[in-house]
């Protein structure tokens, strides 16, 4: 179907450009490692057992790194006005949006894997018998995050404030993701059974669904001239 082809084209293009510039990935990756480093020095091991707060720190790191990286999504498009050419094509605006969300998701997922590795290394975290479930939790959470962030990145890059506006617009809406994501991650890290987080997964999925659908529906209003 042509729609899917168009979507895939946008996704492919974003990933190829990112592969060749590596701009966002490197800055997000560097940020992740350095923040983990700072956290280690910000917490007094005598008073805080990092295992207790690791889930929260992990999610916040990903949120900050993600905001940093995704904020640049539309900046890169404005050189030579290439995005204008994309908007003038017959490709539906929601296909463009979903393609971008897909690319941002892949990139942030890679950064998440890095974060899990780095936090595991620095703070001696055990990922338990079900690392895939943990990955599922994180993936659902960041899907919703990426959907909102991509939409708001389009908005903020259309303002004079640029991506400094992005956190203000984005963070209040992330509360459900943070609450359920951290709680689920916490339980998994503590070795609790998967059944306990069924509700969390449902809510994270609902969050992702809401984000993706509202983004797809509203993107066209953000980018029209």
């Amino acid at each position, binding site marked *: 179907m042509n729609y899917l082809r168009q979507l895939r084209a946008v996704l492919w293009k974003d990933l190829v450009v990112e592969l060749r510039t590596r701009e966002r990935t490197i800055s997000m990756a560097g940020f992740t490692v350095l923040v983990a480093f700072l956290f280690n020095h910000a917490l007094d091991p005598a008073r805080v057992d990092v295992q207790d707060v690791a889930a929260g720190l992990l999610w916040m790191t990903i949120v900050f790194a993600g905001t940093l990286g995704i904020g640049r999504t539309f900046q890169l498009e404005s050189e030579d006005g290439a995005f204008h050419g994309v908007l003038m094509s017959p490709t539906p605006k929601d296909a463009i949006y979903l393609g971008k969300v897909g690319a941002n998701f892949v990139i942030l997922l890679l950064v998440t894997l890095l974060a899990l590795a780095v936090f595991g290394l620095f703070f001696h975290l055990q990922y338990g018998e079900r690392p895939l479930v943990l990955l599922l939790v994180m993936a659902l959470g960041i899907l919703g995050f990426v959907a909102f962030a991509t939409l708001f990145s389009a908005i903020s890059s*259309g303002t004079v404030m640029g991506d400094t506006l992005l956190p203000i617009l984005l963070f209040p809406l992330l509360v459900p993701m943070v609450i359920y994501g951290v709680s689920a991650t916490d339980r998994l890290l503590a070795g609790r059974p998967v059944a306990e987080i069924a509700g969390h997964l449902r809510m994270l999925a609902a969050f992702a669904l809401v984000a993706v659908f509202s983004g797809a529906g509203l993107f066209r*209003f953000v980018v029209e001239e």
Partner: protein
Amino acid sequence: MSRRLSWAGLLPALTGGIMVLVLHWLVFFYVPTEAAQGLIQRIFYIHVPAAWVAFMAFGIVALCSAVYLWLGDERLDMAAVSAAEGGMIFTTIVLLTGPLWGRVAWGTWWTWEPRLTFTLLLWFIYLGYFMVRSATESPERGRRFAAVLGIVGAVDIPLIHLSVVWFRSLHPQPVVLKPEGPTLPPEMLLTLMLGFVSFTLLFFGMTHFRYGLERTRIEAAGRESRDGGIEP
């Protein structure tokens, strides 16, 4: 036209205003003092109705925004921004009365009580709404961005509410802003109801006048551009 506008606004505004005065009299002289918290509990009759208006206002913002994007009629955006201003004012009232209540009743300025938490988030969503409106070079774009924000905010709010309430159930805290016992005595109920009605009327009156103001502003800008656009 302006005459009609001002009557439609004047009626709820005046009625609301008078009722608010009555409300204050009731709050200070009529309502019995609540046993556990003492005098400060009376702030409840301001705090809770204000919260109701704050959220209702956002619902109006979201609805007007959605129809604005769909139909493109600027008047809907004018209605949305008017409601948003009123909404933000009442949100601020909630955020001022809440900590005041908490401080006097329990000694803490802030508590992560769901209603307060939720209202703080709402305040930031309103802030984002206004910032995005004014941060664009083209005002039309700003209006569209703000409308998108209004809709996304409204869509996410149920999820935010669920998550915040659930979070609190995991981390129970001393119940600071406990408004009432198991049942409200009739005097309290009456005062509370008056609070709801008067604030709502006041809000609609304010919104109406604000809408009129916005309309005049846009008409003036339109006339200016027509005169200024022709070059010699």
